[in-house]
């Protein structure tokens, strides 16, 4: 696992959103759970209507954002967003089914997960080992994963790499 600290501006993302327990229908890494279905819906949308998203910076880079709400610790429900970064947001021109998410800028710890690390409980390791080793504390508000060409898919997880971004307390 590689780690670095970065200062980054806010990200403007457009995509699809879900709130609830993403594992209600299927646990594990099943593509049939709500996160898998969210990704499927989003990828299908991109295939059929890419021209409606002409402000996309880089179509090959995808984001999955997890947003923790007040009830998350009580019920396990959270918000999950999947989408792409856009250079500018022209909200009025966005298709009805697409939502905008502004991910706050600031100081982030970026961890590069490789192979089986991606499907492990890296968040627990992060809280108990990695962040204490860096001498930083995370904000319990959100986190996001950045999928680029290094991520080969769940069926080729051993060859894959994934960056996770953790917001830090100042």
């Amino acid at each position: 696992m590689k780690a670095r600290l970065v200062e980054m501006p806010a990200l403007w993302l457009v995509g699809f959103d879900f709130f609830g327990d993403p594992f209600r229908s299927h646990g594990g890494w099943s593509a049939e759970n709500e996160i898998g279905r969210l990704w499927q819906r989003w990828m299908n949308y991109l295939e059929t209507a890419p021209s409606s998203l002409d402000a996309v910076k880089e179509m090959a880079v995808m984001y999955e954002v997890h947003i923790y709400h007040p009830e998350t610790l009580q019920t396990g429900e959270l918000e999950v967003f999947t989408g792409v970064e856009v250079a500018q947001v022209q909200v009025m021109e966005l298709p009805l089914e697409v939502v905008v998410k502004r991910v706050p800028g600031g100081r982030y710890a970026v961890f590069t997960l490789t192979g089986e690390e991606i499907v492990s409980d890296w968040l627990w390791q992060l809280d108990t080992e990695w962040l204490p080793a860096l001498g930083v504390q995370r904000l319990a508000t959100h986190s996001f994963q950045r999928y680029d060409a290094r991520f080969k898919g769940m069926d080729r997880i051993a060859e894959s790499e994934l960056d996770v971004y953790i917001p830090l307390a100042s």
Partner: protein
Amino acid sequence: MADVESMARAVDFIEAHLQEPIGVGEMALAVSYSLYHFCRTFSRLTGHTPYDYLMRRRIAEAARTLWQTDHKIIDVALMYQFNNPETFSRAFKRVLGWQPQQWRRQARIGPRQLMPPLTLTHLRHWQRCAWRPVVEQRPALSFVGAMTWLPAETADPAPAWAWLRRELGDAAPGPFYGLTCGAADGAPDVTCLAAVADSGALAAGRALVVKSLPPLTWGIVTHRGPAGDFGLTLDYLYHTWLPQTDYRPAWPGYLESYGPTPGRSAAEESAWEVAVPLVRG
């Protein structure tokens, strides 16, 4: 420690805190998992989200307390962490299909009414069976067999199978079926038909009965493992899978299809189909 043992520990933690204000975050912490990984793993191995399991078990134990004691409904609601009687009644009706007042007046608690606590044995059985439940319409069925009464559904129906063998001899080599029917009033005893599929001709001149079932919708799983674990399969069907569907049992019973072996086998590697009759709602 393997995930399945960790999730069994998480269940133990939940069971020990049904009357305390715990959340999913505390459950995850109790077994040293991140919240996200815990929710994913718990759902995968138990078939319930952690919060759903907590709420269903709270309702089950609250229902037992209501039936066994004279405590006021509001006191039982508060005991199991429901903030007000309305929330409690809504959750109670959703899980059990009764209002708490009505529940209290019933004569007995039926054998499949209250969700039991899951155990490590359940979770290991879940893994072995790798459930893939399906809902299927099947045409009318007709059976010929020997019927017996059992004091509980897990009792051994061996006498019925011995009777069937004696009456049929080599006349019908199988496949064999077991039809278990419970009482509508929730009494624990059941009737069990040890049978073969037949239109009725086989019954002529034999001390056997004919039983026909109309075309029905069935919820079907494959039980894997010895007969002694069959109760775990019923726990999965009635308390984990069915509550997550739009169906409820059409009547209190189920049909087992054993294939060429008559009756439930005690062999570790045995497998047979279990089907529950369903109706919408």
